[in-house]
């Protein structure tokens, strides 16, 4: 039963993608329906496998007979996979719903004709398929296959508008994430050559020196995908994509694939060398501060949110690194941050979408006093902003607090050092985001904000649901996160 549901959940969005491509102009209802059913299946799957991880291998690769005789491709649902599903699939549904209203010719920033719908929903639903497949992967090989599929979908969706900047941005993203994927492939090949297995736990059977190298390669792949230093330059440029895509791929889903890889690697039941954890943590802290330094010069609202995303992915890596050094609480905090940040950042991005739809611009210097004409967007933006910067009792406070508590469980001066650095960054990013939020929504309205169109109900409903998510995400994530850890 569970297997069939899982396989259905995997296949349904792919079928929906093909259906959308075929239906072209009338793709939207099919897309919404497919996404809704997939969400229902994902929630059912999470509830029915709660507390008892489920594994079922289905397909074997005939050309590997003789070396590996058991099936290789299959389904694996444990708390970490459930958490990933709960982030990816509902936000995917909300993205599809939002896009039905956003991607029309009434959009003041980028009007889109209805002949493009087929192409858009095809790639979007294919992306949902690939994220679902990635979330329930039982080993590195299947993980890699869906990982590459997400890269392709991301390229297609970033270049959706097919003008020169977006084509360049899409190609840049493709190149940089593929460079990381090359290291991923190398790591898988080394593991298979040594242990004849693609399992996550096969990493533990490698000799120590080689294991460190393989972990380093996986880390590089994760960094490339999650836009960490030194690969962080593709994400701000990827904001050329339509805003729902920026919200979904580049805040909630695709970039989370990188941290998900690391979470799986670290939690597969064997010890990760402290050097690698320290490297991961150190680069995470560096990324957080590098991203912070770029906040102050951004005029484009989406680019600002992109840099914020980079910093928050650094937080997840930091949490996982702290978990790798021995403090499980840090690992749990990092993983909880996946769901909390996903919902909070999606809220912010969709607000940016509302603003772009209604006023035609994303430039902070042109936006003032929008709170009067767009009260719902203003409320959602403030809640999202306070949630993302970690103001209690909203979502990201809990995950940040758990990460800091985990850091304090480490011995020596490392804990207080991380504490001081993170609290400084929190205060600075909070101050800046609040300043930007105030600038955009409060104050006397400028001309461009005088007569914005009221966004359609689909966009408003999405925003309301995500705002509820900003408050409720920790309640959903905590039970799952408590089940994780060694």
């Amino acid at each position, binding site marked *: 039963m569970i297997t069939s549901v899982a396989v259905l959940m995997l296949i349904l969005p792919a079928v929906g993608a093909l259906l959308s491509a075929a239906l072209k102009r009338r793709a939207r209802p099919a897309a919404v329906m497919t996404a809704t059913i997939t969400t229902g299946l994902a929630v059912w799957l999470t509830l029915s496998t709660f507390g008892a991880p489920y594994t079922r291998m289905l397909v074997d690769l005939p050309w590997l007979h003789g070396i590996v005789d058991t099936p290789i491709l299959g389904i694996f649902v444990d708390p970490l996979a459930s958490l990933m599903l709960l982030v990816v699939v509902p936000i995917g549904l909300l993205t599809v719903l939002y896009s039905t209203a956003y991607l029309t010719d009434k959009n003041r920033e980028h009007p889109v004709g209805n002949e493009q719908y087929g192409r858009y929903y095809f790639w979007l639903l294919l992306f949902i398929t690939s994220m679902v497949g990635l979330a329930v992967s039982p080993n590195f090989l299947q993980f890699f296959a869906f990982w590459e599929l997400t890269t392709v979908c991301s390229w297609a969706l970033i270049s959706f508008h097919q003008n020169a900047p977006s084509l360049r941005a899409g190609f840049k993203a493709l190149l940089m994430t593929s460079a990381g994927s090359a290291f991923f492939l190398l790591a898988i090949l080394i593991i298979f050559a040594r242990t004849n297995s693609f399992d996550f736990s096969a990493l533990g059977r490698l000799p120590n020196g080689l294991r460190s190298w393989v972990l380093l390669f996986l880390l590089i792949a994760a960094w490339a995908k999650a836009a960490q*230093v*030194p690969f*962080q*330059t593709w994400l701000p440029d990827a904001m050329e994509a339509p805003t729902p895509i920026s919200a979904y791929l580049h805040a909630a889903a695709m970039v989370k694939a990188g941290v998900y890889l690391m979470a799986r690697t670290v939690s597969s039941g064997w010890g990760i060398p402290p050097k690698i954890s320290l490297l991961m943590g150190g680069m995470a802290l560096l990324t957080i501060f*590098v991203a912070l*330094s*770029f906040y*102050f*010069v951004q005029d484009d609202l989406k680019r600002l949110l992109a840099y914020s995303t980079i910093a928050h992915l650094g937080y997840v890596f930091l949490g996982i690194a702290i978990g790798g050094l021995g403090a499980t*609480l840090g690992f749990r905090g990092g993983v909880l941050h996946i769901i909390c940040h996903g919902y909070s950042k999606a809220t912010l991005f969709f607000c940016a979408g509302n603003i772009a739809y209604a006023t035609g611009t994303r430039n902070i210097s042109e936006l003032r*006093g929008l*709170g*009067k004409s767009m*009260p719902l967007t203003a409320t959602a933006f403030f809640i999202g902003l*306070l949630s993302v910067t970690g*103001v*209690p*009792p909203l979502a990201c*406070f809990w995950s940040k*607090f*758990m990460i*800091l*508590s985990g850091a*304090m*469980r480490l011995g020596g001066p490392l*804990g*207080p050092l991380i*504490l*001081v650095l993170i*609290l400084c960054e*929190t*205060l600075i990013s*909070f*101050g800046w985001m*609040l*300043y930007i939020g*105030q600038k955009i929504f*409060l*104050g*006397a309205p400028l001309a461009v904000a005088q007569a914005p169109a009221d966004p359609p109900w689909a966009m408003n409903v999405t925003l309301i649901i995500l705002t509820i998510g900003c408050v409720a995400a920790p309640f959903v994530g905590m039970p799952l996160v*408590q089940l994780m850890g060694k």
Partner: protein
Amino acid sequence: MVNAVHDVEVSIVILIVGSLVSLLFARRRKLCGWVSFAFVCASSVYTGLAVVGACTVASGEHTILSLPQLGSSLTLRIDPLSAIFLAIVAVIALLSTLYSVRYMEHYAHDKVAKFFPILLLCVASMTGVLVCTDFLFFLIFWESMTLTSYFLVTFESENAASQRAGLKYFIITHGATLCMVAAALLLWRTSGSFSFDAIRQTLSAMLTTRPVLANAIVFLFFMGFATKAGLLPMGDWLPDAHPVAPSGMSATLSGALVKLGIYGLVRLFCSFLAISPSLKIWGIILALAGTGSLFVGTLTALQQTDTKRLMAFHTIGQIGYICLGLGVGAYCLDMYPALATVALAGAILHAVNHACFKSCLFLGAGSVLYRTGERDMDKLGGLAAFMPYTTGTTAIASLSIAGVPPLNGFASKWLIVAGCLLTGMRFPLFLVLGLIALFISLATLASFLKVLGSVFLGRADENLGIKEVPISMIVPQVVLAALCVLLGIFPQLVLRVIGHAIEGVTATPVAGVNASRMWSGLFLIDGSPVAFWSPLAVLAALAVLALLSYAIQRAGGARTRSVPVWYCGEEHAPATVRYPASSFYLPFKHAFQGIYPSGKVHVPRFPAPLRRALDFDQWLYAPTVKVIDTAADRVSRTHVGILQIYLLWIVIGAIVVTGILLWVRG
């Protein structure tokens, strides 16, 4: 008994529900206001029951949820100290909401949906802060309080000053909260739990084993609470934020919110810290900080011409008094517990009194603003003829804050100064601080005489059409003024509860203030006539003198007639010949001009070389791509398009490969 906690929980739930309900009615201003007031009434009733319950019987605790993996649990408990501050919050919230019902008409452009629901959530957060016994949840309620009050401070969305003030407020207080988070996590590292009891034990143990870390933690907590209370220099947000908020909210901010910072300081220094040499040093630091605040705050207030800004600076000043009392109390807790009780009782009583008179003053300023649209005292004058109730209540509150007997300000200031001077006989620094406090009392009186004189006295143009404010705005002011008088004549009413509170918090028996006899006044230190204050005697004397002067006047039988003011033969409008507020106390203004430094904060700009270094695209990726591009270009030059050249390449390639194979095989 558990019932007191249960009452507080019900109160908080009522406020949260009320917030949602008033959001539904947001389109109709007055209805929204009255609905909110109804909910606040209901919740105040329950809070009142809880306060009474906590003062009479020892309270139990109630755990709502627990997070064992973090060592934290949402456990609520009320002790007499919480009860006092709960009473303050409930009363001020009730009166401010009643006042705001009509006051919000002043704001034609801003929707009430931004005010009443958030105000109710703010009151709920304040109530929650006072009953938490676990630091994690304390922090959540604390930050909710800051969050909601931020939206109330920035209520006027088109006023740039409001926005700036709100931003400054939130950032400074958030920084303070993060200091407290750091302190709590550092303690958690050792103790594994966030509850107040665990913090007390761990901190006490740490003071002997790791004093540097322990004092650092105390410093971080101190910064957190003192910023909220408004102690200088962290309290710089206060003069900007309190004036721009709607006046009902200004009253709540000054009356209730800053008291929660005081509550934190009392818990920190009297309860968390064990009696040790550090406590004496912290006492001195606290007293010095308090004196600094009261000196700078009040003297800056003397120079202000904006009614609400003047009152905001006075809040800083009066908080300075409270901290001075706390500091003396902390210093004396070890060696002279009787004197400590005097000073602590004075400090907490002053917190209660300050809530009464400062809220009354802000509501009065709000009434003036509501009717005239002005906060600038230079443009106001002669309102006594048109707004008698407001004048009366503001006059009573002004005399209270100045510490004029027999009003309530005198009782608490007397206790604080007595504590300072009596301790000063053993440690001279406090003598100096006590004398400064006395002098500043005078400055406070001068400042409020300026307010009364320039706003209410004098004459005004008759046909400006100013009337008294509506009844729902008069009632809160009158109630607060009446409280000022009542607490002035019978300070014993509150002092008994304060005695229990101090006993509970410091775990030492109360000896200093004998407040048991209602009708004969206060005695310090066990009845020996070291110090003695009997408000009833003074009131009786004043009454006798008043009767006497009235009798003399009637006996003299002088005729009184009213005449216009003589301006040496010229006709002047009253507004031009009034003595404006900015002309008061010019020598003081010149002498203390630079006493409150202010600077501008600039948007941070990253140095250009650093930004260039961090721009990986520019120096790493673009050049790499260029190099690969050039190399590929060079390679593609071999594709010349001539068949013979390609055949040549194939032949050469075959020879090379065969050569390599033969070499490897060999």
